[in-house]
């Protein structure tokens, strides 16, 4: 069957209709359990039907609307917009009940946390006494860690060993570099691969980033870490590549098994000739 390959390689048949090969494509669609999308049906009643189901003032309303609508109706009939009605999980009650359950669970979790670990308030602001430990909230630790990259700030021989920019400017710019790197990801990583096993390199880059965020956070609290500061600084930049490399190796190894399984599944659905 030639349309086995045409159906899976490119052309998704979103309307469940026939492919380029006509009736044979329908056969293909059915063999994998359908595209999940069926032709529009007439579940949504027309104005006339709604009118006929009611009486009294609402019937009158529909009668008027039917008149008022006739122009728009003809426009709509001319348009080529296709409404798609498809079969799946109903919104009510299944989806709604599930969402309500999730919502109450999450809100309950927040309330439980607030009841068990309430925040306290420190001494009032005093510009004359700097506290021993100044820390932002935990989610800014990575950014705070970037401010402590002074030793990495390059010194230029031309400037007589002077630094091109102040250490803190360097740290602030590093924030921009990180945000910029995250921003360009979708423009560099193209293609249809999605799962980490399919793209070990990008998963490794991700693990590198996560680890870097973590180690930078550790660096930002270096006065609290029971550890040699220089060792901590070195680990901050050594750990991420190591974790990235391990991720890459593990995923490369896993990939073979995964692809074997996926291929088996795939060929079971569309047996080769």
């Amino acid at each position, binding site marked *: 069957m030639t349309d086995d390959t045409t159906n899976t390689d490119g052309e998704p048949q979103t309307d469940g209709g026939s492919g380029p090969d006509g009736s044979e494509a329908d056969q293909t669609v059915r063999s994998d359990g359908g595209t999940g999308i069926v032709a529009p049906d007439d579940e949504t009643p027309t104005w006339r039907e709604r009118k006929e189901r009611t009486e009294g003032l609402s019937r009158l309303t529909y009668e008027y609307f039917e008149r008022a609508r006739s122009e728009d109706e003809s426009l709509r009939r001319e348009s080529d917009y296709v409404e798609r009605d498809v*079969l799946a999980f109903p919104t009510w009650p299944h989806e709604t009940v599930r969402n309500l359950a999730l919502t109450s669970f999450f809100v309950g979790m927040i309330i439980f946390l607030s009841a068990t670990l309430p925040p306290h308030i420190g001494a*009032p602001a005093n510009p004359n006494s700097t506290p021993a430990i100044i820390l*932002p909230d935990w*989610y800014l630790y990575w950014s705070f860690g970037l401010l402590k990259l002074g030793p990495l700030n390059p010194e230029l021989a031309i400037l007589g060993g002077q630094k091109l920019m102040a250490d803190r400017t360097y740290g602030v710019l590093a924030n921009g570099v990180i945000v910029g790197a995250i921003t360009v990801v979708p423009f560099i990583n*193209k293609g249809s691969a999605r799962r980490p096993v399919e793209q070990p390199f990008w998963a490794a880059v991700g693990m590198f980033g996560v680890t870097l965020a973590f180690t930078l956070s550790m660096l930002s609290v270096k006065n609290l870490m029971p550890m040699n500061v220089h060792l901590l600084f070195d680990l901050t930049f050594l750990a991420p590549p190591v974790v990235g490399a391990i991720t890459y190796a593990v995923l490369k190894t896993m990939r073979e098994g995964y692809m074997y399984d996926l291929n088996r599944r795939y060929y079971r659905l569309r047996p080769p000739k």
Partner: protein
Amino acid sequence: MSLEKKDEYDHKNWLESKDLTPVEATFLTALIWVDKRLRIVDYLELLESLYYRSNLQMPKSHTEQYDLDNKFWYWYALYTLGFFSTLAYVVAAISGALLGFYYVPAVGSAGPGEASIAYSQIAFIMQDLQFGFMLRSIHRWSAQVMTAAVFLHMLRVYFTGAYKEPRELNWLLGIVLISLTMVFGYSGYLLPWDQLAFWAGQIGVEMSLSIPLIGEWVAQLLFGGFSLSQATLQRMYILHVFLLPFVVTTLIAIHIGIVWVQGIAEPH
């Protein structure tokens, strides 16, 4: 012969020909009057259609279609993180609005180390206000949870490759949102005007000052000067309760709207 145009939409004649009771006639006249001006037929039809499609059915997902559930089930819990952060945002908004009834963003005449008005209002909320301690706790924790959920949401999107081709714009929007979330947290962190708030603000001022070229301008815009004062507190307050809520709520709506339009990207 009148000059008035007579067309098939001559509702008045139609009304007369219907032989209606006074109630019906009044109702219909009012309906036509309003509809001529506001065209409520559009909205009513929309509502009706929504009603009839309350069992609106979504397309089969990729995993459903190819029966891959048993393969990828472990990702699915992570797909709720976006919803979770939105929910935490809503909880934070509600508790924040309630806190806003009592908080005052003023330093007052407090000297160094003395309780400012803002600080004593927080103390009032925590000590005297009925349920106030819990309220502040809920606000703080929902903010923490939101930030955590947003971070994890970003990781999920990264590792499932959900930022790919048609969805780059939403990834960019997400970066803006995560940054604004952190600004939200930072500006809220300064409001109690305790020691940590003050010195976190100090670091903020110094960070803005060290931006090349526009540093001083940024410091003045965000912090109202090069040292912390009433102006800083006021600006952080307006950021936290006025600017950011509008901007972030709008962006969240757009973010979710795009997800709705584009559908959820699943690993395949």
